[in-house]
């Protein structure tokens, strides 16, 4: 009778800490991490933009490393720490990378933004002071169809300045641009 659900293998139990909160869920073995986060935990800030691991809209941190959550099974995250865009701000305070995207207008439609931000967080962790070239290389796996990337690069530079030298120095340095339109 071609019944897909009757031939599905039994569900597995996983324990994952997501944004600091431990979760214990039954999941299908073939469930992708991105769908676990979105459909089972309701964390819809992680987006799905493609079928082939190209776009990077789904990037989250898995044990501190940026991964495309559409390339990982939920069961592979068993026992792991996952951080999504929803877990980045500390209370009322933006993470410096969120602040960078806000301040430097690093978004238009915003669909790529959570993935861009999570990739940037991982970049700045390994390389707190990246050159423009390093930024562009690090974000090569994150597609944006709206911005042309210029302001995304500026947002990353702004965030790097925030993290390493504080906002004063950033505002004085020429390469992050100055407020426009005044």
């Amino acid at each position: 009778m071609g019944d897909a659900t009757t031939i599905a293998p039994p569900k597995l139990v996983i324990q994952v800490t997501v944004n600091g909160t431990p979760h214990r869920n039954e999941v299908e073995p073939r469930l992708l991490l991105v769908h676990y986060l979105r459909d089972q935990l309701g964390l819809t800030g992680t987006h799905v933009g493609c079928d082939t691991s190209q776009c990077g809209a789904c990037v989250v941190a898995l044990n501190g490393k940026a991964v495309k959550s559409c390339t990982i099974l939920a069961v592979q995250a068993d026992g792991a720490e996952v951080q999504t865009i929803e877990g980045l701000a500390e209370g009322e305070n933006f993470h410096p990378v969120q602040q960078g995207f806000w301040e430097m207008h690093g978004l238009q439609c915003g669909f790529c933004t959570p993935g861009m931000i999570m990739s940037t967080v991982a970049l700045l962790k390994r390389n707190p002071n990246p050159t423009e070239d390093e930024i562009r290389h690090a974000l090569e796996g994150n597609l944006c169809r709206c911005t042309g990337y210029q302001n995304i690069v500026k947002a990353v530079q702004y965030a790097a300045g925030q993290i390493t030298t504080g906002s004063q120095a950033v505002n004085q340095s020429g390469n992050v641009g100055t407020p426009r339109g005044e």
Partner: protein
Amino acid sequence: MRGTIGASLPRPDAFGKVTGETRYPADLVRPGMLHLKVVFAGRPHARILGIDTAAALRQPGVVAVLTAADVPYNAHGLIEDDQPVLCAVGEKVRFAGDKVALVAAESREAAAAGASLVVVTYEDLPAATDPRAALAADAPLVHDRHGSNQLLHLPIRKGTIERGFAEADIVLDGTFSTSWQEHAFLQPEAGIAEVDEQGRLVVETAGQWLHEDRRQIAKILGLPEERVIVRYAAIGGAFGGREDLSIQHLLALAAWTLRRPVALIWSREESIVAHHKRHPMEIRCRWGATYDGRITAVEAEVIADGGAYASTSAEVVKVATLFASGCYEVPHIAADGYAVYTNNVPSGAFRGFGAPQAQFAAEVMVTRLAHTIGMDPVELRRRNIYREGSLEPTQQPLPPGVSALPVLERCVEEAQVHLGYGLAPQSLPATTSLVAESVEADQTATGSLTPRSARGAGNGRHSPSHLRRGVGIACGIKNVGYSFGYPEQSTATVELHGGGDIERAVVRVGAADVGQGSHLALRQIAAETLGVAPGTVEMVCDDSAEAPDAGSASASRMTLMGGRAVRDAAIEALAKWRDTDDLHVEATVQYRPPATTPLAAGTGASQPNYCYGYAAQAVEVEVSLLTGQVQVLRIISVHDVGRAINHQQVEGQIEGCLAQALGYALLEHFQVRDGRVLTPYLSTYLLPTALDMPTEIVPVILELSDPNGPYGARGVAEMPLVPLTPAIAAAIHDATGVWLTQQPMTPERILTALNVGTALEKGSSNEITTTIDTKSTVTAHASK
């Protein structure tokens, strides 16, 4: 609040977008909703002999399989109702992305399993997949009732073409071809629908025009429009790709028929296979000019592959035909545009709407003419470019506010500063072109400004390196708003609340914010006009029942049209407010711009548009002679936006559009064979990444007021896409001496052109007519 106009205020929607709180359509799915899955045709042309849903209905979880029999009025379209919602037994499927059945199930998995069990039997038919061949009398008919595959033939005639060529000293022929372009908005189509407590059908998705989606859905279901509510969640990009119905009507049909909340999320593959694309076009043209730099004649034939359904093809082809002579006042024009039905994916709206294809051809031809008569390409443009009062190909003067020349001059200035354009003393040989351009050209060369890069490795073939640099310049024109007599209006309501002062202002305007920031721009216009802080203004834009019709977020029109409606409504509300002690006043204004007129049969005589945006760009590229790779090093993009309502958002539009333009010029190679899409994933259809974009982009904003726009604003969203492909083509030519006339200019095509060029050079023939890669022919003759 005064001073709001122009300010780069932060986007209010950015908060939710950087925290992940913003809800896009796929984020609206709730437990208990039915999941929908479309059964696609998967073949370009076939008659449906039968649809067997029995096995699908036996699949656990499947609730229903909807077919054409369930659709009250089974036809829709933006202009012509020629597209079925679901293709019926006995009828035909006309492209691979046609929809045959819609499965509704309790889970996504069950819906997918059910869809795979729907058995459709087909009788395959010969397919028409080449637009030129589809025009032949014996071609398979895509729409039998239509009687031919010609959807539109538009002739535009100005002056006397024979006279124009007789007056010319030089005549050049060219053939250009462009391919499809996929919008690839990052958020694939998704949405939900349900019937609310008051019995109204509520559809929540992403689109570009609330009230048009509502009109089409109501018509399909046979409902009064008030019974249908269309709402937009956060929209993940659009670029014209959400103008046609894609899933809105499927959601509506299922929710209405089954009386259950439903959800539908397309994969990237479904999105690419099923929604419309930018038109592929073949443009054959012939341009004539005098030695002293007067363009005397343009003859052009534009054949556009409209695909299986009409969509907006007719309008796109009108725009392409109108711009066959670019932004130049040419006395003698004979242009013929054809929109052709084929069994390929339908073509429709995409940022630029016919202008990029037409002006790829026009701008390359102008540069070639300049080289041929030995004149600086900028100087030839200066002498012919549109000015105030210039007559369009449709024989009427341009709408006032023509800024093509100042835009070009500014671009040249910036190119001198940033690219060293035309500054260095030139001792370059005049005959480096591999296209044998003209004997006359050499004889009449003036030694004026040369486009060759003065700073780069430049003029490559004499450099030992395999990397060659070149510079190119091109202009562009694109209409703002609807054209050719299409009804154009935008309506807004402004409510003011408060005692002595305005404490709260509510602006209702049904304008989609597809990511471009229109809600912020409209808010800034309201705040400025009302003299209140932007934070005092509340925007109601995303619900067809709560906000009046502002028209579509397309044709670069929302700032001008929606903005003008908001401004006029705010002025009227303010006047009422001053006249009364009421704590609440309200004004609704419908703004209509100066009327446009339909193209007259036979000549195309008309007032086609009420506003244009003008652009000019200069680029520097580096070409690898070994791999054919082109790296764009710098882009200068100059635009007259009338007035920048929010500087940052305008720059964002320019930069973002340039990425799409660069993808179009060099990377995005959408391929279809025998009606089947070969590039249905982002792994096969390549989009520009952060590494593909130049680090140096100089957006230059001119503010030469439009007479109708709010605070003088006109649109900018599409214009950067118009000149970039020909500017890059000119830069590649500057670097290598070969002209590319096929979009996209892929490394393979560049290598092929270089090889042909070298072979020609070795032959060292004085022959003036050559054929390069793309069938581009160059003919020069002296007619005097």
